[in-house]
């Protein structure tokens, strides 16, 4: 078992996939000569050359569109957004072209493209550069949305995303890039749509993904000392969604909290909450609760940023309230 950082795991996944399929290329700002803004593509230019690790000017809309066009005729692009915040100027290409191409062509043009990059809240990057976008993209049929929380998941899910014939929104957590974890030796993949119980428990189910898993895990440790047993469901991908994993856990614990980095209004947690209440309502002892980022743009001020983000304490408080 190798210990890799989340960043190294992503790097290894891309390198392995590109080695076995010459139709895969990586494109984005600073992915080549600069070795990646977040160093996820470190070393890849040397391995694959400028023909396959392609630096672009600052033109997200343009190179996202180039990725889509090239995928229409058989290439398998990995398009890196330096951060998902910059995907907004390319969102027309993602929503209107990539997500709908197969549908509106009557199945003639599958779209084997991965859009990936850093997401979530970074260290005091303020309103325009600290945002969680998974709910935005999960809203749109035709896209797959993947949000890994560990190096192992990052590796296995990125490989599956690259092999998938559909447009995948692969959101990496900016603050997790340096996180270390065990990644098994040898090649493996994790199917999209398969969640994982990251911690077993009996009193309450925490449903989460990406960096919010760390808040959930920390809260579980705090509550354990108070005799509360928390089960954590890491969804890993939002589309497709491992609904049964959530339901089986809720049937056991009878309570659920969704913990996410995004805003609450029309957020993905609202969808999960609806699904739980629709499908396992009779098992619930309490309405489904949510812990999200506050309903405000992110502040630059350190104390306000901290207050704005979900945290282990907020998760623990919510659970204590539910169990009172």
């Amino acid at each position, binding site marked *: 078992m190798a210990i890799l950082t989340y960043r190294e795991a992503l790097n290894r996944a891309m390198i392995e996939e590109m080695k076995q399929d010459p139709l895969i290329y990586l494109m984005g700002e600073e992915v080549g000569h600069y070795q990646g803004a977040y160093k996820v593509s470190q070393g890849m230019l040397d391995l694959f050359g400028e023909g396959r690790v392609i630096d672009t000017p600052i033109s997200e809309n343009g190179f996202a*569109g180039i*990725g889509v066009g090239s*995928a229409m005729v058989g290439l398998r692009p990995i398009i890196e957004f330096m951060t998902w915040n910059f995907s907004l100027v390319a969102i027309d290409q993602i929503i209107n072209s990539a997500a709908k191409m197969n549908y509106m062509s009557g199945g003639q043009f599958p779209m084997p493209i991965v859009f990936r990059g850093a997401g979530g809240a970074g260290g005091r990057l303020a309103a325009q550069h600290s945002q969680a976008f998974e709910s935005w993209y999960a809203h749109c049929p035709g896209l797959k949305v993947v949000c890994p929380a560990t190096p192992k998941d990052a590796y296995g899910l990125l490989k599956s995303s690259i092999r998938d014939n559909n447009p995948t929104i692969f959101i990496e957590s900016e603050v997790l890039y340096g996180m270390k974890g065990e990644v098994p030796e040898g090649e493996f993949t994790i199917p999209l749509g398969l969640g994982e119980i990251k911690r077993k428990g009996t009193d309450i189910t925490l449903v989460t993904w990406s960096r919010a898993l760390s808040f959930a895990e920390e809260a579980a440790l705090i509550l354990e000392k108070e005799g509360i047993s928390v089960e954590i469901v890491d969804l890993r991908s939002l589309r497709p969604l491992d609904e049964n994993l959530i339901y089986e856990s809720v049937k056991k614990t009878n309570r659920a909290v969704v913990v996410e980095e995004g805003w609450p209004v029309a957020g993905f947690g609202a969808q999960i909450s609806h699904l739980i209440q629709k499908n396992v309502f009779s098992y619930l002892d309490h309405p489904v609760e949510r812990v999200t980022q506050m309903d405000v743009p992110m502040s630059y001020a350190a104390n306000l940023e901290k207050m704005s983000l979900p945290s282990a304490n907020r998760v623990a408080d919510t659970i204590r309230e539910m169990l009172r």
Partner: protein
Amino acid sequence: MVSSIPKDSHSVSELKEFYRQMVLIRKFEEAAAKAYSVGKIGGFLHLYIGQEAVGVGSIAALTPHDYIVSTYRDHGHALARGLHPNPLMAELFGKATGISKGNGGSMHFFDKNAHFMGGHISLAAGIAFASKYKKEDSVTICFFGEGAANIGSFHEGLNLAAIWKLPVVFICENNHYAMGTPEYRALAVKDVSIRAHAYDMARDHIEGDEVRKVRDHVKVAVERARRGEGPTLIEVSTYRFRGHSMSDPAKYRTKEELEAYKKKDPLMRARHELELGGIKPNELDKLETDIQTQIDEAYQFAETSPEPPLSQLHKYVYAEDK
């Protein structure tokens, strides 16, 4: 008016084929307008009437390996590519037999085998990127209006195509109105092709009423792209005789202006040239009648085709697994 009488039998038969295609487009569009007015076609319907020489001339410069990217006013381009009118009309009617199985509609004609895609500027650059990546010598041509030349993706797409010398020809069909906005209110520089200078890109400007002239100019650009010398921006000045779409009565332009352009109708011009080249009027009348029959059949085909099965609603959202 006539500057190019076809000189030999080859150029006569060539022009005759172009004329056939243009008449096919004209009559297809007239039939589509009729179907729209009686509610058989929904949504937007942007007709190509008046612009036929642009699509027919441009696409004549391509091989079957080349790609065509078009959107909005795409019926004429699809017909010029040789796609059969039946599945095109059926698509407009939203039928299962449509070219995109009824999921696309007027603005989204797709035919993978014919290398015909609905899309826009950066997608065309992407298809050209793939040709270069795979070391294939295909060229992509991309049609768009002068209105689209003001969208940000025009700049990004052209800049990227230029720095990477992608085999793509950008054809701006300037019909002088972006919906109801005349070009002088939308374009700081009226001649769109001049913008090529900003990207150190080859450029050309053509009047779009003479089909063989369009073909000859586009051919130069296609060959340049095929030699690996990069993209070209071509502006073709043209005019639509109808409104922007069927819901637009086009009150923003004068009757006199429309009449002046109708005197430059590319079909009229081609027919006149063919007559001067020795083709008898009754032969051309017959050609037109035959095409009308073909279009009537397409209309009939579309009308009698089944709607997509309801089970199709959820199909194609995601690609089938490998």
